[in-house]
């Protein structure tokens, strides 16, 4: 018995040692490289996420652990007109900004895709706003939109006209927020398109020139198909980003008038920090998460299809 017990590990070790060496073999040891990040990732993202889901099943405020209520919070969300409105607002906002960002970004990239000094300066100009924080962006745009003495009013004043009430007309507030957002975010799509344009080999443009293609046909038949994937990518990235609208709405209109500019994230924030209804806020968070996850899955599928065909 003892002998067998002693010898068996050795026996087992022998073939293990003789086992073919493979530099690609999975080894626990290799996992050490990703471990530090995984610890932080799990502790600060996965755990809060799970905790958030748990919380969403509770009636809880910031100061007490709360009591289990099952899906009651979700039922409340379902019955809450404002929540539906917030979802609608969010989609409306995405609809306002994403196509504009994609199209304007592409136009700018096309116009600035050259090696001149001017183009370099203009690229800087169009990207510069992207580095500002939301606090500053909204401050700037409030000053632009403010009735009476804002930049817009001043400019309109030169022509003796009164500007539209961008921050109080229910039909215009979302557009105002969208304008500020586009101004703020245009740099990223532009850069993505620029880099995509640069990956189009110059010689197919030369071939097209020899093929007598005019500017429009060159764009339509050469450029556009070549950046199709980037276009999809930009759209998906922007959908995910714009879904998370918060700062602009909170700081420019605080969701008003009458919630027409209240996006989901602001709803969540208010539920948690104004109404102290953590459970409700957490439930709304999960809904947002699911919506964004769907968008991200689309992105994943798109990029995977890209990987397959590449």
């Amino acid at each position, binding site marked *: 018995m003892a002998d067998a017990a002693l010898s068996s590990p050795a026996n087992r070790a022998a073939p293990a040692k003789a086992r073919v060496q493979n530099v690609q073999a999975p080894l626990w040891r*290799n*996992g050490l*490289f*990703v471990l*530090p*990040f*995984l610890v*932080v*990732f799990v502790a*600060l993202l996965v*755990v*809060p*996420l799970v905790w958030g889901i748990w*919380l969403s099943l509770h009636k809880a405020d910031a100061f007490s652990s709360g009591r289990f209520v099952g899906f009651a919070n979700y039922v409340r969300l379902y019955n809450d007109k404002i929540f539906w409105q917030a979802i609608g607002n969010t989609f409306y906002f995405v609809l306002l900004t994403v196509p504009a960002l994609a199209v304007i970004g592409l136009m*700018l990239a096309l*116009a600035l895709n*050259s*090696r*001149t*000094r001017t*183009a370099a300066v*203009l*690229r800087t*100009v169009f*990207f*510069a706003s992207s*580095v*500002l*924080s*939301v*606090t*500053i962006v909204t401050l*700037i*745009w409030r*000053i*632009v939109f403010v009735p009476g*003495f804002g*930049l817009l009013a*001043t400019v309109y004043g030169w022509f003796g006209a009164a500007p539209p009430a961008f921050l109080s007309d229910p039909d215009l507030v979302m557009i105002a927020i969208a304008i500020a957002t586009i*101004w703020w975010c245009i740099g990223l799509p532009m850069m*993505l398109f620029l*880099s995509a344009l640069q990956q189009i*080999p*110059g010689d197919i443009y*030369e071939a097209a020139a020899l093929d007598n293609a005019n*500017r429009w046909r060159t764009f339509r038949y050469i450029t556009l198909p070549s950046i199709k994937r*980037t276009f999809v990518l930009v759209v998906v*990235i922007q959908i995910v980003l714009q879904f*998370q609208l*918060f*700062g602009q709405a909170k700081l420019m209109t605080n969701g008003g008038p009458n919630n027409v500019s209240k996006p989901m*994230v602001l709803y969540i*924030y208010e539920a948690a920090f104004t109404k102290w209804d953590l459970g409700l806020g957490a439930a709304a*968070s*999960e809904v*947002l998460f699911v919506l*964004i*996850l769907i968008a*991200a899955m689309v992105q*994943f599928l798109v990029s995977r299809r890209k990987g397959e065909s590449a």
Partner: protein
Amino acid sequence: MTAPAAPTPASDVGRGAPSGMVGRTTGDRIILGLTIALAIVMMAPLLWVVALSLKDNKELMVSMNAVFHAPYTVQNYINILATSSVFRWILNSLVVAGGLTVGTLVLSSLAGYGFARLNFPFRNVLFVIVLMGLAVPEQAVLIARHQLFSWLKLHNTYPGLILPGLSAPFGVFLMTQYFRAIPKELDEAALLDNASRFKIFWKVLLPLTLPAQATLGIFTFLGAWNDYLWPLISGTKKEMYTLTVGIASTQTNFAQSEGLGFLMSQAVFAGAPILILYLFFQKYIVTAVSGAAVR
């Protein structure tokens, strides 16, 4: 992601454009003209804000049009500097943004190398989970995270401000992509040179990721510097304010119009360092953006 070459200078950006071709100039000029016009529209709000910040508050209170004529003053900026805490806030922002940047670089590089180059049990599953983390908006975990940090007594500490940012998977994603683009022969050559896995990472591959490090570093730094929501609810003591929160806190209750110029100077003050940083690192940022997404 392109192969890890030296970062292309920004002036190289227009490579794809046909350059010496005969013909087609008027059209180009019209487009350039329109673009410049749009750029001016783009810049107008910024210039307006800068102009406002250089005006005396009292004068602006009477009429906003004062902005179009002299006198201009830097008094608003002097007032900001006199708010003694501002330097503390800048320090806090530097510590938080810097700490987060360094931490992100370290964690992302290690993990990126691991995911890109090494095989270990459950690697693919873990990578997909991390990728799914990209879809988790910060706001979705805000509440739970705040509670967690309360229990851990991490609020109003530097770790409390830095740690949440470290969990963002974007850096890992970026670095993984970047490591994957480095030719595998380099690892293999080093393996034949008897180098350990860590040595390959540290001595052979890491130096090649410098452009990506610069990119990720800049983005992380910018993001941390401009973050508003988390510092607002975690760094709640004056001496733990970051610059964004601090500047927001000085805005007077209900009397903004008194201090319009002052308010604008704060906007400029908080935005300027980051804009300068941007201009300074522009070429990296440009390649970074390009590299990060396409492919």
